[in-house]
């Protein structure tokens, strides 16, 4: 499916019978610096189309995590335009911002599980925040925890879990609300290869159901296993993009 790239094409041409295409993520000349320091990200142009599956690779310190932070609005750019779901984030109200965040599932390297809540409660968090009834989601969570292999640990507190278990709990929390955009930072970094493949299947399955997936990873095996677009970042600049959904 052709995707119009407004950055490279000043006069976009849409095929007359093509369905309207939603840019889930769009970066235009995005730059980020802290204070008066040097730019950590420079002139990032990127588009993730709806339903795309994209890997973001690059060496450590290249800016992968920072780029992801911009995608899930944990940071604001110093310059340029970022739009999520076709909405410019710089003009979003607080309410719109939080509503947008509810459409985004995030798996971070430090997991960010709440220590005094059980695995079940941690996973339920996005659903509680969006005001859903416990009775309506209990079964879904139990099923998801079975899928990620944590059903026997659902009442455990995060500090008692291994790194891999915490990672799986964080992934379950990111996907439980069936987000439109899933962002994961090294999601298979702490798990054994079998679990890693299983998690990748979960992401793939979600992608098949329409979720746009962006995964930052070093894991070449993971990239090889999954036929998907790849973006490479080095020294704060995006270098290449393989299609179909992701565009430089």
């Amino acid at each position, binding site marked *: 499916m052709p995707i119009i790239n407004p950055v490279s094409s000043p006069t976009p041409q849409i095929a007359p019978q093509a369905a309207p295409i939603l840019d889930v993520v769009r970066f235009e000349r995005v730059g980020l610096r802290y204070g008066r320091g040097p730019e950590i990200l420079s002139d990032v142009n990127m588009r993730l189309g709806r339903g795309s599956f994209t890997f973001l690779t690059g060496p450590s310190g290249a800016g992968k995590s920072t780029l992801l932070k911009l995608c899930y609005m944990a940071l604001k750019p110093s310059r340029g335009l970022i739009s999520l779901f076709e909405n410019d984030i710089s003009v979003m109200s607080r309410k719109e911002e939080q*509503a947008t965040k509810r459409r985004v599932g995030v798996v971070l390297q430090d997991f960010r599980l709440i*220590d005094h809540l*059980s695995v079940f409660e941690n996973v339920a968090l996005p659903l*509680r925040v969006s005001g859903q009834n416990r009775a309506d989601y209990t079964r879904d*969570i139990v099923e998801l925890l079975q899928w990620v292999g944590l059903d026997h640990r659902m*009442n455990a507190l995060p500090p008692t879990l291994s790194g891999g278990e915490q990672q799986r709990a964080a992934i379950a929390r990111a996907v439980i609300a069936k987000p439109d955009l899933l962002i994961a930072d090294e999601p298979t970094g702490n798990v054994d290869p079998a679990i890693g493949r299983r998690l990748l299947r979960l992401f793939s399955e979600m992608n098949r159901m329409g979720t746009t997936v962006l995964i930052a990873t070093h894991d070449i095996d993971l990239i090889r296993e999954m036929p998907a677009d790849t973006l490479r970042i080095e020294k704060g600049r995006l270098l290449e993009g393989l299609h179909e959904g992701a565009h430089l």
Partner: protein
Amino acid sequence: MSQTPENVTAQPLLSAKSDNARSLIIVLAIMAFLAALALLFALSTDRMRKDWQGELGRSATVQIMVDSPELRDTQIDTAVRVLKTAQPNATILPLSEAESQSLLRPWLGNLDLPDDLPLPVLISVNLKNGESLSPTRLNSALSEEGLIAEVDDHSRWSDQIGRSAQGLKASALALLALIFGAGIAVSAFATRAALSAQRDVIRVLVQVGAEDGFIARLFIKQAGLRGLKGGVIGVVLGLITALFLSLRRNAETALLPDLGLSISDGLYLIVLVVGFACVCALAAGVTTFRLLRRERRRA
């Protein structure tokens, strides 16, 4: 083996262990205790003022200057007749000489007064409820009978007592307001500390899309419950103290208001507890919104 969720209801999102909940409740309980005593004092003072003013307002004292001891009884009879005519429903009671002398004891002590010391005749006039008395009219009526009389309707004392009692009541209410102000400050301070202690939780909540109102509600509920707990403990202790003081009340402390309780006092105390909890919750809500906004601006 597969499990089921242990808790039927959702676990609280804010950790109770991460802040000094117990210390905070103790502080709030002490404040509620002081607030309860201040409120009971204000209510009792008001009640005492009404009682005293009511009693004074329903009575008057007529003072007759007797020309000579021989005429004393005749003048008393005349005065009583005049007073009965003027106030037919009132109880007219002339004080005996001994009673009149006893009234001087606070000033003169237990001295044997000389027999020729001219003491005025005092006549107590006790009115029925709703009845009024005009000192001027009574004075004229008594003068017409040739009596040198002075009618004191106690309004001077009544006004003074009223002003004093109002002052005490206002002081107690000011103290109550101060305690509520301190409650706001304590709750805001505690919320600030809790927000800091629960920073990681808030960061996660913000990341999963929780709105400020959702986060504020967590702190409002927590502060409200703590205010309620502290309020109940403090008010119960205040009640016990008030009852104890009321039971220990004797002639020496009779001028102090009796902190004895009425049903309306109980209702006021319930309002106090609820108000205290609401104030704590409100302070927590305002603080949370303000700090979240500030954090956002900083980010």
